[in-house]
């Protein structure tokens, strides 16, 4: 496969096997001693992570372990208590939230956040609007090419003119993913992207993520579906009570006794973990 070109430069083609080759080896995002405290509640407390460029990293952990707070901190939507954030070599822990997309970070939310008054296409176009003026090409008629492409890739072309309220929950989540993809990010943060989807839709989203990885897009995935994390991620982090429990190859992480005790339950096994 040829190396696709994005606004962040030409990136090497990603791995074919999600487990064997975790990204390109260089870091797309570095998190150093990140903490988010709300009064006495330490939602995130001293997290240090490095996400590999071109790979899919995942975070698992029980509810309240700080996963979504971490994503909010990475997108500057919550105030940091301390810590350093570096994306593509640029420190950004002090920038305002509106500048984060310009650094190449896009996200989806844990709950569907679409604008009900806008059509599916217009919701996706919000992501395209976030691109700089030089990167936008608005045709006189119809949708910009990247918007139509994002709709097509997520199987939404047929419902482009519908309103979100006319769609199933799973389809609405796909609109969110399309909106994030069309921003042409260097790092995509997906906060439980398959919540509310049926099995077939989950398989489709997982395949889409792997396809995006093959095009060089780095991704950070938060999910409770551990089997999907095993099937999709190159590298896995496990969190509990705002702290990092462990990290490593997905199969190794889910086999870790600390992870099983804090999240999965003792004796938890998965098909992939057995391999």
């Amino acid at each position, binding site marked *: 496969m040829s190396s696709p070109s994005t606004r962040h430069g030409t990136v090497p083609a990603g791995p074919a096997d999600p487990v064997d080759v975790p990204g390109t080896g260089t870091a797309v995002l570095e998190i150093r001693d990140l903490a988010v405290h709300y009064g006495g509640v330490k939602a995130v407390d001293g997290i240090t992570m490095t996400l590999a460029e071109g790979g899919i990293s995942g975070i698992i952990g029980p509810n309240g372990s700080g996963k979504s707070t971490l994503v909010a901190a990475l997108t500057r*939507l919550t105030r940091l208590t301390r810590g350093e954030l570096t994306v593509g070599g640029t420190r950004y822990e002090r920038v305002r*939230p509106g500048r984060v997309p310009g650094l190449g970070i896009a996200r989806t939310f844990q709950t569907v956040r679409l604008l009900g*008054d806008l059509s599916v296409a217009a919701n996706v176009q919000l992501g395209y609007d976030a691109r700089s003026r030089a990167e936008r090409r608005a045709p006189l008629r119809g949708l910009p090419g990247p918007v139509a492409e994002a709709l097509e890739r997520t199987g939404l072309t*047929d*419902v482009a003119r519908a309103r979100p309220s006319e*769609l199933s929950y799973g389809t609405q989540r796909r609109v969110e993913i399309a909106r994030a993809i069309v921003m042409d990010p260097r790092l995509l943060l997906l906060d439980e992207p398959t919540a509310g989807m049926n099995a077939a839709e989950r398989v489709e989203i997982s395949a889409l993520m792997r396809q995006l990885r093959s095009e060089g897009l780095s991704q950070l995935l938060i999910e409770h579906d551990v089997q999907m994390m095993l099937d999709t991620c190159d590298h896995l982090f496990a969190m509990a009570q705002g702290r990092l429990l462990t990290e490593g190859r997905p199969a190794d992480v889910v086999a870790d006794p600390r992870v099983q005790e804090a999240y999965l339950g003792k004796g938890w096994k998965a098909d992939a973990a057995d391999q």
Partner: protein
Amino acid sequence: MSAFYASNLVLVQATLVAILLALSIQVPLRLGVFSLAGVGSYGIGAYVSANLVLREEMGAVPTMLVSGLVAAAVGLVLGVVIYRLAGLYLAMATIAFDLTVGVVALNGGEWTGGPVGLFGVFADLTMGLLFGTVVLVLVLVHLTEVGRLARRITTVREDPELAASMGVNVRAYRLTAFVVSGFLGGLAGCLNTLTRSAVGLQDVSFHLVVVALTTIIVGGALSWRGAVIGAVLFTWLPSVLEVVGEWQEFVYGLIVVLAAIFLPTGLYGLWCSARRRVVERFRPPVRPRRPDEPDVPAATVAPEHEVAAR
């Protein structure tokens, strides 16, 4: 037609001024900023313009610009001070600002004329200039209701956190709302003074808050068309209601109450809903592609794809 126009010239002028006043409340509302400061700006514009004409003998156009800019500057300062407020608290703070302007007008000495006001404010304002100004403002507001800017404004109003994630500087948008509201309010106040050649405490009264708010609630809060509909309705309604004599106030109030209950999106919203129902009736049923279905070619999507229901 010309006889009708000549006999109703005052109402025509009042309608044009009412459109600008309604827009000064509507523009921040479209950004999710529940600010009623446009009425205070209206008072500032009214008194500033009177002083500019009476003391500096300034012409209509520079008077309009200076009045609008002064009110916009005050709006910016107000916005910076109360930026963190939202919802009813913000509305209360801006009403307090409106009342403060009224107190200043009452105690402003020779600058405001106190309870008597200022009279004899004659400038070279023509109907063409008045009409052209309002049309220009409407065109500019219309440009914020289409395309990329409209989508971003909608996002700031509906979900500020999402807007930030889409690269929108939410703070800048909201502060701009205060500035634009101030300019439009100041311009409306100025034009009111120049058309009536007088300014008094009635131009900074709480009654104006009620009038401006009901104008956009009944007309429609999310488009300039709603402001125009509401301004025409409430400027001309009192003269129409003369036939009911002393029941005029009652009928006026009844219309406002009924509109608030049965037309939550205003008259323009009612039109948009009806149009949308017709479009959806003739549109094929929505069915997303299933994962196991073959890929379908990208369809050409008509420009109407982004039309929002208002």
